[in-house]
């Protein structure tokens, strides 16, 4: 009985017995067959047969590469990118005579780029390796043949070893639980599986009876057994196998298996046999590489690359075409035209008789020569920039949450800019918008409502009614210096005791004894204190009691009971003990023990839970449950306070509280015994409908209840959620709430967090109508489905018309749809209509939706709208949604790691989403967009000068510049300023980003990376190249370019043009960025300076190395005034188009950031001139320190 009860208490919840019995039996029959072939020789890893099996050790490696395969594998990864292949081909061809420049100058940068990326990979892998080493070298005690435990490292464990794991230690491998030190000899232990499945509640594991007596080392000496079980697999919650011990087979279930990376709790130590090691453990089998997501900007960038590839091919083709014609004309009738080229005696590359072949080879040369259009360094620069951007996100103090000691965390750097383009947010409710911590706030006992204090929801309701005056007050919550929302009024989330936010002097401090029905009040709290599955955990030093609860509201109940004087302090398998206030006699604290006879536990179909206890001779059934099931079970006499209670319940649920009805009944001894017999019969039956039998048995006793009252628990909103959502709404980001809660709760939370606002029209789509219910009862599924479909499509149509009328009246709409309707609405015919309706509503709430539906809704919006979607959630049930959305944001810190592991960004609090999107997202988007545009600009400006020069060199493929000058263009002379742009640029400061959320639309509508803008920049690049080429040639070439009458030759022209290019692109950068710290200044001007320094040094070294650059700058260019004057002329004229465009555009058609910049400017001017009071600026409250 003892053990049975306890097992019942938890186990049936973890692993459905019925399920286990049905399928488990079949599976056990499979042992030894395919997929179930593993044999473990317990406590005997050195057995020759065991050795023969060659199971791998417990060494774990999560690295991507090994020392041996690093080079080939990472190289392969590198060359999966099309651009890199292009560069590789170019590098290979550059060794042939086709190459317009020396091979080294092509190979050098490629090696640098590839090497750099490989170094980064190596570094990342090293870090993983360190983690591995750390894990592999952890210590564990392993049993050796000598009869004692000795310490060894995790990696040395082998299959079959017996290990001893202590309290709060991680299990080193997948173990079979032999025995535990917990309490009696029943071999149970508690396990924390947070790292595996994200569930915070402890799980109970229990060893087989035959092994549970191995309590010390001597017992183990004689222990040998053989386990036959399934092969390694990734199913965390299943295990099939049996233990062959002393000639008998004992079936094993997941119940005996302790998984690696889970933690032993509340148990001093356990013994276990290693079954799976290293990579064969279930947790490692589960390790998957998440699907890599790419941002929209990057996808568009690929398209630009294709455009540039086409441009490259086009101009190469034009070049080789002209070249072919010219070459053919060189030798006509055996007569040389351009005799100085010796066309009569030439190689195939210039052969007039084979002009088309020459033209083809020249085409290849052209591909290399104009390769500057496709910047080799672009990918690297973007990579660097993104990594640095994530550093900023990770280090942002304003996204650090003190309470959980969690900073924000960008888990991937691929999606930074995507954060600035979010169109729709899908948010989970529990744990994301709300804290998932329940506060006991109200109760109704014997028809009297207790509990004061306002809930967040109530405040919002008040605000709804009395807008705007009071609403304004609420929205006045200001952001303090560190960006944390400080609430006006009473601080929420800082109630003295967690889970308890109940204020009522009538009840508190033992005053309840003076109330009209003290006996009922006592009963009420007795139910709360006894009817639950909470485990108390007594701190041995302080004597404080902590409660370990599976659901937060149960903990809230127990705490509430303790607060009024019924302290639950001990749970034994057969009894529960309370410290109770004895109100009838001397008001002293007494210890009362309740004998726990049965627990009829909670299930989603039963919606209630009861316990049967025996105390001082009385048999009591204590029951709590949902109002929908409880009122039907009351006895005639028990309905004394029904009306009042119902009234209260309505009020509670209106303000978004979770309601539980509390009732009890006294059982007669005879009645109980009769029932128990029946119940036990049901419990031992192993037929398929065992659960149904149990439910039916329970149903029989949970009747004739006497109503005590109802509790109301607040699902607290997370800090700053309403403010954050309002900001997001202002940024015109649509927020959809997807929750499993019921409609009323969801709507209330919707109002509380201002997803729904006063004056919004609610469009509700639900199947909760009488006709449908009627059909449901009839059970004709086909008719039901048809009726549902019709009803939904009708409701969507109506919603649409409501929407149009609302729009005419300048009203916003909120769409509320429940899970059942969603099932029908998500079919092919209706989803377009639904989407059409939904996207025109300001907010959408989907209630009663399953994890799969959440993902489906996300996919629907993502695919049909093609806009960026972001999902935010905290629990394992949000994982599919997080992976489906373009960006998955996990809330870290509370509900385990599952969501965070699946997410791209992790933030500790929902409200940080505001900063993540409006500030970091906006900045990152802007930076990357500008960076890419600029990158193409600078490469086009450079690449096209080469093309123009070709046009004057009969397209022979001669580059205009020195080889090394060209190779360094992207590496030294222009790369750092771009990186600085990508990392540091800000259009407006963070507080103005938050102040004017509308700014975010620049990203959401992709204004900064529109084709118009991209092509504009490209055109600017072409324009710059034309100006550079034609100005310099006209200024320098032909006549003398210096006082001493010397003329500019090929080298001098090259240097002059190059100088102009370097100046022009760097100055273009300087006029297009908005934010100059010393870093930008340093990078821009030092890039220019470096060009001069480079020319000096490069020109000074021996002509064997510097070839055509030898002394050109120092001897020829510097003394020429024309050289300097042409630089000035060219730079100013290349900047002129962009500058005047910007000047007129900011004035005539300013973009949001232009306007905000000028506001910012005004503000800072006001601040410096210290006449703030003269112009009180309401709109800058974020930014006033």
């Amino acid at each position, binding site marked *: 009985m003892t053990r049975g009860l306890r097992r019942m208490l938890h186990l049936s919840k973890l692993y459905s017995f019925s399920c286990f019995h049905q399928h488990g039996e079949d599976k056990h029959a499979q042992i030894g067959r395919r997929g179930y072939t593993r044999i473990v020789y317990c406590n005997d890893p050195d057995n020759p047969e065991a050795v023969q099996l060659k199971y791998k050790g417990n060494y774990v490696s999560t690295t991507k590469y090994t020392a041996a395969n690093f080079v080939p594998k990472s190289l392969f990864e590198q060359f999966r990118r099309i651009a890199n292949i292009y560069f590789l081909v170019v590098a290979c061809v550059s060794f042939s005579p086709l190459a317009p420049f020396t091979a080294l100058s092509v190979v050098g940068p490629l090696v640098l780029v590839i090497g750099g990326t490989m170094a980064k990979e190596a570094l990342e892998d090293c870090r993983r390796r360190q983690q591995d080493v750390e894990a592999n070298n952890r210590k564990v005690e392993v049993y050796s043949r000598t009869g004692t435990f000795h310490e060894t490292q995790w990696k040395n464990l082998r299959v079959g070893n017996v290990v001893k794991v202590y309290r709060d230690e991680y299990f080193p491998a997948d173990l079979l639980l032999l025995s535990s030190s917990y309490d009696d000899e029943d071999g149970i232990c508690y396990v924390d599986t947070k790292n595996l499945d994200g569930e915070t509640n402890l799980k109970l594991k229990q060893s087989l009876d035959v092994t549970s007596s191995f309590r010390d080392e001597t017992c183990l000496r004689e222990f040998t057994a053989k386990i036959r079980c399934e092969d390694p697999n990734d199913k965390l919650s299943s295990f099939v196998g049996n233990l062959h011990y002393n000639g008998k087979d004992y079936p094993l279930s997941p119940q005996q298996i302790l998984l690696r990376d889970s933690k032993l709790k509340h148990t001093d130590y356990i013994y276990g046999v290693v079954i799976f090691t290293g990579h064969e453990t279930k947790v490692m089998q589960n390790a998957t590489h998440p699907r890599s997501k790419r941002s929209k900007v990057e996808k568009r960038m690929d398209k630009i690359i294709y455009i540039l590839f086409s441009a490259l091919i086009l101009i190469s083709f034009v070049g080789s075409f002209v070249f072919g014609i010219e070459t053919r004309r060189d030798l006509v009738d055996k007569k040389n035209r351009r005799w100085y080229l010796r066309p009569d005696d030439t190689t195939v590359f210039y052969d007039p008789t084979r002009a088309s072949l020459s033209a083809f080879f020249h085409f290849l040369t052209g591909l290399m020569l104009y390769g500057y259009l496709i910047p080799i360094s672009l990918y690297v620069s973007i990579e660097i920039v993104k990594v640095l951007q994530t550093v900023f996100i990770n280090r942002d103090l304003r996204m650090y949450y003190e309470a959980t000691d969690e900073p924000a965390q960008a888990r991937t750097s691929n999606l930074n800019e995507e954060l600035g383009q979010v169109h729709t947010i899908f948010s989970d409710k529990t744990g994301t918008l709300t804290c998932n911590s329940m506060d006991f706030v109200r109760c109704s006992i014997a028809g009297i409502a207790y509990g004061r204090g306002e809930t967040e929801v109530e405040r919002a309701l008040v605000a709804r009614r009395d807008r705007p005056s009071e609403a304004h007050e609420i929205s006045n919550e200001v952001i303090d210096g560190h960006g944390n929302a400080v609430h006006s009024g009473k601080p929420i989330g800082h109630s003295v005791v967690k889970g308890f936010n109940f204020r009522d002097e009538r009840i508190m401090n033992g005053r309840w004894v003076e109330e009209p029905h003290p006996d009922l009040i006592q009963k009420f709290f007795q139910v709360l204190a006894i009817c639950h599955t909470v485990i108390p955990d007594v701190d041995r030093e302080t004597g404080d009691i902590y409660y370990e609860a599976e659901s937060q509201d149960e903990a809230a109940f127990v705490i509430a009971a303790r607060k009024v004087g019924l302290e639950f302090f001990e749970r034994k398998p057969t009894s529960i003990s309370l410290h109770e206030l004895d109100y009838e006699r001397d008001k002293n604290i007494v210890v009362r023990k309740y004998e726990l006879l049965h627990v009829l536990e909670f299930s989603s179909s039963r919606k209630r839970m009861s316990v049967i206890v025996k105390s001082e001779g009385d048999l009591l059934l204590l029951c709590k449950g949902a109002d929908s099931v409880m009122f039907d079970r009351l006895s005639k006499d028990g309905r004394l306070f029904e009306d009042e209670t119902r009234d209260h319940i309505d009020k509670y649920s209106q303000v978004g509280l979770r309601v539980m009805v509390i009732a009890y009944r006294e059982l007669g001894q005879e009645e109980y015994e009769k029932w128990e017999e029946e119940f036990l019969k049901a419990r031992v039956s192993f037929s398929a409908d065992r659960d149904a039998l149990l439910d039916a048995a329970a149903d029989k006793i949970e009747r004739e209840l006497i109503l005590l009252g109802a509790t109301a628990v607040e699902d607290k909103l997370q800090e700053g959620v309403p403010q954050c959502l309002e900001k997001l709404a202002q940024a015109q980001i649509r927020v959809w709430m997807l929750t499993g809660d019921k409609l009323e709760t969801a709507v209330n939370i919707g109002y509380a967090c201002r997803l729904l606002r006063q004056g919004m029209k609610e469009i509700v789509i639900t199947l909760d109508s009488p006709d449908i219910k009627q059909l449901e009862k009839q059970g004709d599924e086909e008719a039901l489905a048809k009726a549902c479909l019709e009803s939904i499509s009708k409701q969507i149509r109506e919603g649409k018309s409501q929407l149009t009328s609302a729009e005419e009246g300048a009203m916003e709409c909120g769409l509320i749809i429940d899970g059942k309707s969603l099932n029908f609405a998500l079919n092919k015919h209706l989803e377009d209509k639904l989407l059409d309706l939904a996207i025109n509503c300001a907010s959408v709430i989907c209630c009663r939706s399953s994890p799969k539906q959440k993902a489906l809704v996300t996919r629907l919006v993502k695919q049909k709208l093609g806009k960026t979607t972001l999902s935010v959630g905290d629990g394992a049930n949000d994982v599919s949604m997080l992976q489906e959305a373009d960006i998955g944001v996990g809330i870290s810190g509370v509900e385990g790691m599952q969501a965070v592991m699946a997410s791209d960004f992790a933030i500790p609090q929902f409200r940080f989403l505001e900063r993540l999107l409006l500030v970091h997202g906006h900045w990152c988007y802007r930076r990357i967009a500008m960076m890419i545009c600029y990158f193409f600009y600078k490469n086009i400006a450079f690449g096209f000068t080469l093309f123009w020069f070709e046009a004057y060199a009969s397209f*022979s493929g001669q580059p205009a510049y020195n080889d090394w000058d060209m190779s360094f263009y992207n590496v030294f002379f222009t790369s750092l300023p771009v990186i600085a742009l990508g990392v540091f640029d800000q259009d407006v400061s963070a507080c103005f980003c938050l102040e004017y959320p509308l700014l975010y639309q620049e990203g959401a509508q992709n204004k900064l990376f529109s084709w118009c803008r991209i092509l504009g920049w490209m055109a600017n690049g072409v324009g710059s190249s034309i100006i550079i080429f034609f100005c310099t040639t006209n200024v320098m070439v032909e006549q003398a370019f210096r006082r001493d009458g010397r003329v500019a030759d*090929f080298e001098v022209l090259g240097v002059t043009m190059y100088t102009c290019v370097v100046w022009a692109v760097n100055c273009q950068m300087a006029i297009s960025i908005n934010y100059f710290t010393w870093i930008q200044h340093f990078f821009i001007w030092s890039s220019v300076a470096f060009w001069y320094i480079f020319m000096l040094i490069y020109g000074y070294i021996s002509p064997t190395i510097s070839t055509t650059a030898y002394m050109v700058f120092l001897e020829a260019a510097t003394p020429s005034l024309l050289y300097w004057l042409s630089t000035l002329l060219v730079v100013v004229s290349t900047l002129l188009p962009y500058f005047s465009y910007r000047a007129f555009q900011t004035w005539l058609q300013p973009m949001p950031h232009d306007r905000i910049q000028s506001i910012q400017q005004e503000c800072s001017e006001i601040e410096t001139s210290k006449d703030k009071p003269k112009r009180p600026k309401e709109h800058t409250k974020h930014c006033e320190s």
Partner: protein
Amino acid sequence: MGERGETSSMGGGSDGAMDSFTSAKKISKRPKYSRFTQQELPACKPILTPGWVITTFILVGVVFIPIGLASLFASQRVVEIVDRYDEDCIPSRFKDKVLGYIQDEKTNKTCMRSLIVPKLMKSPIYVYYQLSNFYQNHRRYVKSRSDKQLRSNESMWKTTNCEPEALGEDGKPIVPCGLIAWSLFNDTYKFSVNNNPLDVNKRNIAWDSDREHKFGSDVYPRNFQSGGLIGGAKLNSSIPLNEQEDLIVWMRTAALPTFRKLYGRIEVDLEANKKITVTIKNNYNTYDFGGEKHLVLSTASWIGGKNDFLGVAYLAVGGICLFLAIAFILVYVLKPRPLGDPNYLSWNRNQAGRWN
């Protein structure tokens, strides 16, 4: 690059484990404050206010126009005589068979031209020859040289890129090898004023760096122009390459198909209206590819030779800037708008639900 691998979805498992192992130290994950990581570095945030725009435009105009005027003035002061002689120097009887004339070694290629000095030309007067349609920047041509061979005698055999002018008929290398040297310009000019010959100084017309570092003093022409096909000028094989300045000048290839190269300097002043008689040996074949030949006499000022482009360009850009400044002032007057108009940005609740 590639995909950024988050090692495994279970990485957190070991993270968590590590936490407990290091929990003794209790390191807070709180990011450290620095203005850098919080992106609050002091910065200057320039924006395009009308004041700035107008000032910039005017400033550019004010700086550029004087520069333009000064260069234009300097360019105007330069006196330049350009004489195209390629057509006129073909005797009329050869007009139909120009190629035959120029390729025949026996024909008399002497040609007399007279030039009038338009204005006083102060010394030094630079003498250039100007070729057009001559692609000295052709890749085959540019590459067809051996810098190593030019630099030192030991590298005589390094003639990799010089084909087909690498080896002479005796199988020994040609020095200087390659097409550039082979096609050396070989027209010559002799000047006289009133039958008094004018000296043309041909020293010091090449870059010092070329003479000193790129062309060796121990390298003598060898096997040059000895093949069946003769390209251009022959070289005196007793003079080392670093003193053959015509060659050095020629070997600095020109950037564009029309180019001038320095021929020499006349170091006396020439009075206005003086008549200069030039005796040209019209040897060089530009007729095959339709190139023109010009003889240019020019003085130089601080901007070099005569070149109006620079001045005109400066004036144009300066003018445009002034024009833009005026245009902007007009726009500013006609359409005044307080830049930071907060009304535009304040969020209108009713608009929020709409699509833009």
